[in-house]
């Protein structure tokens, strides 16, 4: 970058997380660590059937069990829809809740709840569900965009007035030009179907909440959530309360990855209101698998054409996302990214969200994008191979640039896809690609449009000379440390002289949910402005005390001094004390910032992976990984790299190991961490993170969101590497060793 680049004191220098010590000492408080006086424990009774009528619920045995305080069904709670009413739509659908004096007693009693079910036909395959005459999964609720998807910026627009096939809860269609004419101009046309399995977010901390009602019915909710204000709004809406009557306290979050949006809070709150005692509902691992919202399975049929010169001529796609028992899949964003990554004049993309009798789908790190890019980037490699083009040059030639239209017609804002590709092209690893026997390299692109949500922040100077920054956004990624660094940069302080607090929804300024890679991008500017505001106030006060003009003052190392006269100075601590004492004539230092970003900042990544294939077993091992990503500006480079490595590891998991498996009756077969295999330290290689900085015009110091992109290109990079290694291609994730063996055998 140019020499005019401002030099920073804090930004861009790796800073250990400010929440490190409490987490390392075991003193950070997660929701399951809370034990308010009088606490009761709730346990859910779940449907064992994928689809059934609930004939009768006999709670008499459970009610008499030791320690049981209440056994509640839908009709016992206000509103009634918090538990299944008359019909269950997936195995795991909660039908009753048992509340007891201890967790063990609640679990014992839950076994005694007798539910008489009349099983109904279960529809489990989305493509079968779409056929005319297929059984109806459920009466479709009114159109409602999923909160989680909206929070991720994953609601994608596009024509939605298309006819809906049976059981389709959403249809999205993007069209441009004439695909048939486009295919006619192509020298190569490739058509294939890709499948991605449903996966769980795999946060090691399960979902949990503690709720307590005051005598007037107002509520305090302690929860593991990505969004405290979102939780407040969702709970208020569900319970029919005004928002101010609910105080949400966001606890330390033990992993979320898109999975921790409003889920158990309204139920726990309703139970607490009904019983008048605090209630804790923490899911065990099996129930977490059954009740929470997994990343949906997808089938993507893709046809693309390209000329010999490497230009794309047409892209046609049909996406089917299995949304489970409720609408809210990310099919729209998947369709947008599938058609929005490369310049192609002729497009026709149809996306269908289809209901089935399975756990309702939710968000997981770049919702919809890993599925879309698995198809797109597998296909790009195939086309390059067919046309004998360099796979990187082929992508570079077609990559979208700022101003190019997305499938919805809106122009892409500034984005760094080309810069990432160029960085990879110049990287020694790309040039050399060293490979041993049965090893091969594959590359793939992935991107995320970037979410938006307004945010406000406060910045208070405390009498000890430190800053307290108040925000309403939850920290799930280390964002609080980055926000502290932003305020520290403005004030010329060390980051550990800044505390970032998000106490509860009563006392915090509004902040959006931590999802969609947007916390630093949207809350960061609010913090920056709040700190600048506070700094202005500091200089005004100091000017009065030092009898100097504010512009003659400098703020450094916690002290304001008259430029050139270091003896005339006053410390931040002195200024804070002056303005916070009894009888003071000075107003306290308290800066405000509020921002509604209007332009999103897309984050693109390019991955290069090496795999080794075991020809005897069909197993694939990742033996090298380079992740190149445009991060705008890395405020805390080591933590940005940490996000990238964590995202890649999750991508490796869903490509090689993870899969939610339902049997023919709709039973989830691997609802535990023994059968559902998450990647271990042995499965993940060293991951080299290469940061590209294409500053986001509206981002704080140019920063943009970084959390989602690294999970997105992984599957296709590995599929492309497998083809390079052994000459066959897998169109389904996770890769199954037996499928690879079979494919190798067929290929001879």
């Amino acid at each position, binding site marked *: 970058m140019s020499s005019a680049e401002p030099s920073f004191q804090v930004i861009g220098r790796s800073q250990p997380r400010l929440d490190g010590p409490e987490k390392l000492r075991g003193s*950070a408080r997660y929701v399951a660590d809370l034990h308010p006086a009088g606490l009761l424990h709730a346990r859910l009774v779940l449907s064992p059937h994928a689809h059934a009528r609930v004939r009768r619920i006999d709670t008499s045995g459970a009610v008499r069990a030791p320690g049981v305080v209440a056994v509640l069904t839908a009709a016992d709670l206000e509103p009634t829809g918090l538990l299944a009413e008359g019909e269950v739509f997936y195995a795991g659908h909660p039908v009753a809740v048992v509340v007891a004096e201890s967790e063990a007693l609640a679990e014992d009693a839950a076994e005694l709840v007798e539910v008489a079910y009349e099983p109904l036909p279960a529809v489990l395959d989305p493509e079968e569900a779409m056929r005319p005459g297929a059984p109806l999964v459920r009466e479709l609720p009114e159109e409602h965009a999923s909160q989680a998807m909206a929070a991720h910026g994953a609601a994608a627009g596009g024509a939605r007035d298309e006819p809906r096939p049976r059981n389709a809860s959403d249809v999205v269609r993007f069209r441009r030009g004439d695909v048939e004419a486009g295919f006619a101009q192509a020298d190569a046309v490739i058509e294939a179907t890709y499948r991605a399995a449903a996966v769980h977010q795999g946060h090691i901390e399960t979902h949990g909440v503690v709720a307590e009602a005051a005598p007037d019915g107002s509520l305090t909710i302690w929860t593991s959530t990505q969004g405290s204000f979102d939780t407040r709004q969702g709970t208020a809406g569900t319970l029919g309360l005004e928002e101010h009557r609910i105080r949400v306290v966001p606890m330390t979050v033990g992993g979320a990855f898109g999975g921790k949006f409003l889920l158990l809070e309204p139920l726990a709150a309703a139970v607490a209101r009904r019983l008048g005692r605090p209630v804790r509902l923490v899911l065990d691992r099996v129930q977490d698998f059954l009740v929470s919202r997994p990343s949906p399975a997808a089938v993507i049929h893709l046809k693309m054409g390209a000329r010999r010169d490497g230009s794309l001529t047409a892209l046609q796609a049909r996406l089917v996302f299995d949304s489970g028992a409720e609408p809210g899949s990310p099919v729209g964003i998947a369709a947008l990214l599938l058609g929005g990554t490369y310049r192609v004049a002729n497009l026709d993309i149809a996306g269908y969200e289809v209901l089935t009798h399975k756990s309702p789908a939710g968000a997981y790190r770049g919702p919809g994008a890993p599925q879309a890019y698995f198809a797109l980037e597998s296909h790009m490699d195939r086309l390059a191979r067919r046309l004998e083009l360099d796979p990187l040059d082929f992508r570079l030639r077609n990559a979208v640039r700022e101003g190019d239209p997305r499938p919805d017609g809106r122009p892409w804002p500034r984005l760094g896809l080309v810069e990432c590709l160029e960085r990879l092209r110049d990287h020694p690893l790309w040039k050399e690609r060293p490979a041993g026997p049965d090893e091969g390299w594959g590359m793939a692109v992935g991107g995320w449009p970037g979410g938006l949500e307004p945010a406000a922040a406060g910045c208070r100077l405390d009498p000890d000379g430190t800053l307290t920054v108040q925000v309403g956004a939850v920290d799930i990624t280390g964002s609080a440390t980055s926000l502290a660094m932003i305020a520290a940069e403005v004030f010329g302080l060390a980051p550990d002289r800044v505390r970032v607090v998000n106490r509860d929804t009563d006392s915090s300024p509004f902040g959006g949910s931590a999802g969609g890679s947007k916390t630093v991008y949207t809350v960061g500017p609010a913090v920056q402005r709040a700190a600048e505001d506070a700094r202005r106030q500091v200089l005004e006060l100091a000017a009065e005390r030092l009898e100097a003009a504010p512009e003659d003052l400098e703020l450094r190392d916690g002290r304001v001094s008259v430029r050139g006269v270091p003896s005339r100075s006053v410390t931040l601590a002195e200024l804070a004390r002056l303005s916070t004492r009894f009888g003071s004539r000075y107003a306290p230092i308290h800066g405000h910032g509020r921002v509604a970003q209007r332009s999103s900042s897309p984050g693109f990544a390019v991955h290069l992976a090496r795999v080794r294939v075991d020809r005897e077993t069909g197993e694939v091992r990742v033996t090298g990984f380079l992740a190149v990503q445009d991060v705008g500006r890395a405020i805390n480079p080591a933590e940005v790299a940490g996000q990238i490595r964590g995202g890649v590891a999750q991508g490796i998991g869903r490509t090689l190991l993870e899969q939610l498996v339902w049997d023919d009756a709709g039973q989830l077969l691997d609802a*535990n961490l023994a059968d559902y295999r998450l990647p271990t330290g042995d499965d993940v290689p060293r991951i080299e993170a290469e940061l590209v900085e294409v500053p986001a015009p509206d981002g704080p110091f140019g920063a943009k969101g970084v959390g989602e992109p690294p999970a997105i290109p992984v599957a296709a990079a590995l599929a492309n590497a497998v083809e390079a290694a052994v000459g066959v291609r897998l169109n389904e994730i996770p890769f199954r060793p037996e499928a690879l063996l079979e494919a190798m055998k067929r290929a001879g």
Partner: protein
Amino acid sequence: MKRELTLTINGQPYTGVVEPRRLLVHFIREEAGLTGTHVGCDTTSCGACTVLLDGRPVKSCTLFAVQAEGHAVTTVEGLAREGELHPLQQAFWEQHGLQCGYCTPGMLMTGAALLERRPDPGEEEIRRAISGNLCRCTGYQNIVRAIQEAARAMRGAAEPVSAGQGAAGAASAARGGMVP
């Protein structure tokens, strides 16, 4: 039915009356009030509940509390000495070996047991040793690095290592570039 139980946790004697089915992790968290030991699964898979039993790492969700009768348990709260972070805790912090923090206590206990046994473990050995502890945030790399760094600190070697995350990381990141 209930049984009396005496054991030490972090050197402190604890006596309690528990049901035989009470898991050690629940005794630690609820009776002893030490909530740094976490529960992530109930199938001995995730390792978030790892503690030391007479110095050996065990998954405390897979032991009954009564099985610890007369034994010495060490939890994450017992790592720091007189308020000072244990070298392993310090290394996890400096090397960015934690994010959400949920797996961290178990990871630390497994790491501490490894270093007790093997003062200079190699990368593959560390990855094998922690393969019973799941981390979903970090991709493991900085955990491995932190354990190596702690090993070095504990051996008392003066050689400075991995400045990469600090000054050098900042320098390279100033223009973008690789972050080690």
